[in-house]
């Protein structure tokens, strides 16, 4: 026996750890990330530095900086996103405060309606507001008949309006979560110091929930900054960056991939900058709170209670109107694209006859994607939580990239990367499934890591010590115990996948069209009835999925 004083080399120290089952999983995940996130992103950046003749140049960026056309789009994007965020806060915070602090009625119903309006695709909201407030919308017509002329929904104000109603639920969900766990003794301390209720709210409560509020605001800003459908449908002349990128890429004159890439890079730079800005602000204003005493729900007298309930219901109703409108519209009798009085199933008959493939496509691609997302998401979560190392920390960062890549940008980057050898995927359904996985898997991963943090590591070690190899142990114990937690994120991945438009619109071709792109083209060709029928199918699927999740999870708090 002789003492070894030299430390074994790194490769030897790692040998047992790395090349087991999890080592291979890590490798495969890295291959996937490199191929479908990193490589497309680099292709996108590379393309943005070449002019039409394939010569390296900064011309695209110079064009962007000098041409008003492009600069305006950037300004438009910031304007609508900023305003939408502002109004979403204005609606979302009071909604959260009222429903968490006062005994208003119908809380459960409002909660699920708010979530419903959040997960329905933005373009469905935009579309139904066109049906109501468009140039030929039924409210517009009704008001015109009685002599009132209102501005139609088209234009910047319409985009902001739709975004606000669509996205304030983010603020509501984040803030009501924070308000429920805030340490109420801080508020009581302020009260004992003689602060009025309003000042208390402004000087204590709001600063305490600020980090959470800013996370919600970030979600609103990012979603509206990246959205494609809404500005496309009701922006008309008012163009935002994602639209411009899309138009540059898919233009009838052949398209300008280089300029589209440049715009995409600008988009990513903006979203990244905003993400870091939010992180920076929060890091300076984060308070550790030990919410030992959570706030009580205040019992109101009948009249204030009635008024607050009414107010909250009014907000929720307005935000759910689009869904209702779409569903009603889908049943209206019609001849060709023209609506008639009375109800019928004409629109449904027509879509079954004309675009059955889109329905099949949506469900097959989404089911395939969600299965992969759940399996891969659980494995990735396991690596991130249980196999912490520099390698997995890097993986975590790469997985953040889809957050800052708008759907349109992801679509463009995938096409640029995979429309030429060595790997050609453009025009296949595979590229759609890949896009869905990359974009939507973060929800599943997030909920999977959350549940894993709660699971006792010793349980799987007990299994391994009893002679069951690590991989088998994962599937026999850990994976089974993870399922309830994973489900909450997976349901979100699922509903956002079936509703996905912004990357699909770039990546699909005739045979791989999904419901969402079909709605989009139906609306563009003024086939409102069929569009509504398709949208209703999506809404119904979404609602049923949410309800199943709601009841399966034992009516626990639904977190989005």
């Amino acid at each position, binding site marked *: *026996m002789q003492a*070894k004083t030299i430390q074994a080399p790194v490769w030897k120290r790692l040998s*047992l750890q790395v090349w087991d089952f999890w080592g291979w999983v890590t490798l495969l995940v890295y291959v996937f990330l490199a191929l479908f996130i990193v490589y497309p992103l680099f292709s996108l950046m590379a393309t943005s530095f070449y002019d039409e003749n394939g010569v390296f140049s900064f011309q695209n960026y110079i064009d962007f900086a000098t041409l008003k056309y492009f600069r305006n789009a950037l300004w438009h994007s910031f304007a609508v996103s900023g305003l939408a965020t502002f109004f979403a806060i204005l609606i979302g915070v009071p909604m959260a405060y009222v429903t968490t602090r006062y005994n208003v009625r119908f809380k459960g119903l409002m909660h699920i309606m708010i979530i419903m309006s959040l997960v329905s695709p933005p373009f469905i909201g935009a579309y139904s507001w066109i049906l109501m407030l468009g140039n030929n919308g039924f409210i517009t017509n009704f008001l015109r008949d009685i002599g009132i002329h209102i501005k139609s929904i088209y234009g910047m104000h319409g985009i902001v309006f739709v975004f606000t109603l669509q996205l304030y639920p983010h603020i509501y969900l984040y803030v009501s979560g924070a308000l429920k766990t805030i340490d109420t003794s801080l508020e009581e301390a302020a009260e004992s110091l003689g602060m009025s209720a309003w000042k208390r709210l402004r000087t204590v409560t709001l600063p305490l929930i600020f980090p959470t509020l800013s996370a919600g605001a970030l979600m609103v800003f990012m979603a509206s900054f990246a959205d494609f459908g809404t500005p496309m449908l009701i922006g008309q002349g008012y163009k935002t960056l994602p639209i411009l990128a899309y138009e540059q890429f898919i233009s009838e004159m052949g398209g300008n991939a280089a300029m589209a890439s440049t715009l995409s890079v600008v988009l990513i730079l903006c979203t990244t900058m905003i993400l870091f800005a939010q992180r920076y602000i929060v890091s300076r204003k984060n308070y550790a709170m030990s919410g030992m005493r959570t706030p009580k729900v205040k019992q109101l007298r009948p009249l204030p209670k009635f008024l607050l309930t009414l107010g909250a219901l009014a907000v929720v109703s307005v935000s759910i109107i689009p869904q209702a409108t779409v569903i009603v519209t889908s049943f209206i009798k019609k001849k060709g694209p023209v609506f008639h009085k009375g109800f019928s199933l004409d629109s449904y008959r027509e879509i079954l006859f004309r675009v059955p493939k889109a329905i099949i496509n949506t469900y097959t691609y989404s089911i395939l994607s969600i299965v992969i997302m759940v399996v891969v998401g659980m494995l990735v979560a396991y690596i991130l939580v249980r196999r912490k190392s520099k390698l997995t920390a890097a993986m975590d960062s790469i997985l953040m990239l889809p957050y800052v890549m708008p759907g349109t940008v992801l679509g463009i980057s995938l096409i640029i990367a995979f429309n030429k050898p060595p790997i050609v995927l453009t025009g296949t359904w595979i590229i759609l499934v890949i896009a869905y996985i990359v974009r939507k898997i973060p929800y599943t991963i997030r909920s999977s890591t959350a549940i894993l943090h709660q699971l006792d590591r*010793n*349980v799987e*070690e007990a299994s391994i*010590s*009893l002679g069951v*190899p690590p991989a088998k142990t994962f599937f026999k*114990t850990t994976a089974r115990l993870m399922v309830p937690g994973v489900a909450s994120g997976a349901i979100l991945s699922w509903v956002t996948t079936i509703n996905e438009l912004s990357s699909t619109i770039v990546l699909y071709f005739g045979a791989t069209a999904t419901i969402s792109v079909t709605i989009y083209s139906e609306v563009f060709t003024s086939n409102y009835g069929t569009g509504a029928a398709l949208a209703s199918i999506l809404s119904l699927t979404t609602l049923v999925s949410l309800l199943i999740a709601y009841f399966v999870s034992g009516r626990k708090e639904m977190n989005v």
Partner: protein
Amino acid sequence: MQSVTFEHVTKYFGQSKAVNDAHFKIEEGEFFTLLGPSGCGKTTLLRTIAGFYKQEEGNLYFGDRLMNDVPTHNRDIGMVFQNYAIFPHMTVFENVAYGLRARKVSKKEIEERVMEALEMVELGHLRDRAPSNMSGGQQQRIALARAIVIRPSLLLMDEPLSNLDAKLRIKMRSDIRKLQKDLNITTIYVTHDQEEALAVSDRIAVLSEGRVQQIGLPHEIYSYPSNRFVANFIGTSNFVRGTSGQYNAATGSAKIGVQGMSKTMKLTSAFEGEVLISVRPENIGVSVQRGHEEELAGEIETVTFLGEKVSYGIRLVDGQKLEASVHSVEPRRMLREKMSVFVDLRLDRAVIFDETGKEAVYRASQDDSSAGLETA
């Protein structure tokens, strides 16, 4: 049944050594305890044996077999965790049968062996229950049954009793001890509770800061601690400053002085200079009248009545403080605060360390130390 040999095993966490040069052997059928405060490396060492960690340096053997690259699931071990680690999605029976199913044991034999194991831990009647609502004691019995049913060559227990309440702990530890002797499984047991370690173990290894401080029989560790850490960690010890002088190489003895008193003692190693004398509270004699020359003068500062014993806080003339405990004192003979007393340190029963406390220069009896390989 299996012996376990550590050959200069070192495990790093980053730059620090969680286990530092462990070098000893655990014999077949032995109940061996790793004892130490939290962060001393005892759990790390156990998990290295299990294969959840791999040491960067040194070799680990089960019997003659080198285990360094054998993954956990091939090590043939049974393990019991502090927080039970019961499979919550399985019944009691399925939990215990889990390891047997992995070993492809026939259905009939599984039935027999699981029930036998459940009977051993007195849980046969609960076989079809879901474990999640069962008490901590019951869950830990399931875990124990699950570990022994596979008849492992090695049973590893990581603080199995520390989540249980005090009474149950005492019953469970004697049950575990009995089960281990009946089954004759080499058992390695981790605990921070010295009383538990003394009660169950054949031998104990005391660890601190990744290093094995001492390995020995329970009474050896208690009576003859090899350094200040062990003396302090096991039971309570008084540390009295003194000197060692006039070392005589021929006889191996030196004069040990404390506060003007001195006594010639035979040292285990040549040493002159400052020393630390470790004295157990129960080895200190306290009397109102001076009995002999070697006694030190002091004053009672505190008197604490603890039922079976009385604990006195005594301040010596030079300001050093001692704790002395006297068993079964008649109430009327109890000493009172402020009384002047004479203290007999009974140096021959004490352990004397060099000034750093790292090494003993005198221990009461050296002959019966069968402590095996020692490091430090």
